[in-house]
């Protein structure tokens, strides 16, 4: 449907013609091969995650050392926690995805508020350090669940103020 204000444009489907009808791997084969390739990258990921943690720990130290806290450092923590969120689960660290999501969300909701609550940021970072040091793959246990719950509750309360 088009009217004088809205135009509908049918775009020729050149990709369908380009791909043709040659059979390709089925989804199970694709998943199996991709998972194997990602598994091969696991050792590299362990290095990446240590780099991310170093970035976050350094930025946290910078933020703690300045009054008022250095907002560039807070922004670095936000961005790096977002990267950890995006990759943790892929490499078998769902807890890093979860805590990365929580820390990123806490900072993004109100960066100035986050800067006033560096202790809570530090608690998230401690949790990240713990997961990596103990190499906690999977969802962890009751202790980790309890810690995440406490972080979530604290972030919720502090975000309201």
């Amino acid at each position, binding site marked *: *449907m088009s009217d004088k*204000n*809205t*135009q*509908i*444009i*049918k*775009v020729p*489907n050149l*990709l*369908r013609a*380009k*791909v*043709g*009808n*040659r*059979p*390709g*791997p*089925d*989804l199970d*084969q*694709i*998943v199996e*091969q*991709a*998972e194997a*390739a*990602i598994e091969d*990258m696991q050792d*590299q*990921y362990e290095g*990446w995650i240590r780099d991310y943690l170093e970035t976050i720990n350094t930025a946290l130290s910078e933020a703690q050392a300045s009054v008022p806290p250095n907002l560039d450092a807070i922004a670095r923590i936000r*961005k790096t926690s*977002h*990267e950890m*969120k*995006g*990759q*943790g*689960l*892929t490499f078998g660290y769902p807890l890093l*995805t979860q805590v990365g*999501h929580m820390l*990123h969300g806490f900072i993004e909701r109100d960066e100035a508020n986050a800067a006033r609550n560096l202790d809570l940021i530090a608690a998230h970072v401690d949790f990240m350090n713990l997961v990596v040091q103990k190499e906690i793959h999977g969802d962890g246990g009751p202790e980790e669940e309890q810690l995440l719950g406490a972080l979530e509750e604290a972030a919720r309360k502090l975000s309201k103020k």
Partner: protein
Amino acid sequence: MASISLEALSILVVDDNKHMHMVVKAILNSMRIKNIRFSDNAADAFMELRNWHPDIVITDWAMEPLDGLDFVRLVRKGADSPNPYVPIILLTGHTEMHRVLEARDSGVNEVLAKPISIKSLYSRMLSIIEQPRPFVKSKSYFGPCRRRSDDPTYKGPERRADALLDSFG
């Protein structure tokens, strides 16, 4: 959906995190796609689009100084855009409703939540090829039709963010 070979496709991946380049490359390679280029910022990606003409663009949202949505708007609405119709898949860690709607309104074809699901990326690639949507040009929007099915009688509320992530993008 039938298994067709995606080998002929060329893909531009835009992400400022080089580790994500490696992850996306591994997944695309498993689909037999080898013709892949990478950009780590929107400006370079725009140049790549001009010089190389990829079939599909996969871009991250969280980039600086221009983010993924700025890039999408440049591609869709820029006066000097080399291909306003190129299919774009947006990768994002932002899954809140207002974020997904913002992504949709920028003119992306598909939205894919991070961490990336291999199955979801594959299904979105197939969707672009098998079920392309017409483009809509209005005063306020230019991009793929934002409704999955072209139902002019639909007057219901906006779907949930999860549903949009699953079926819209």
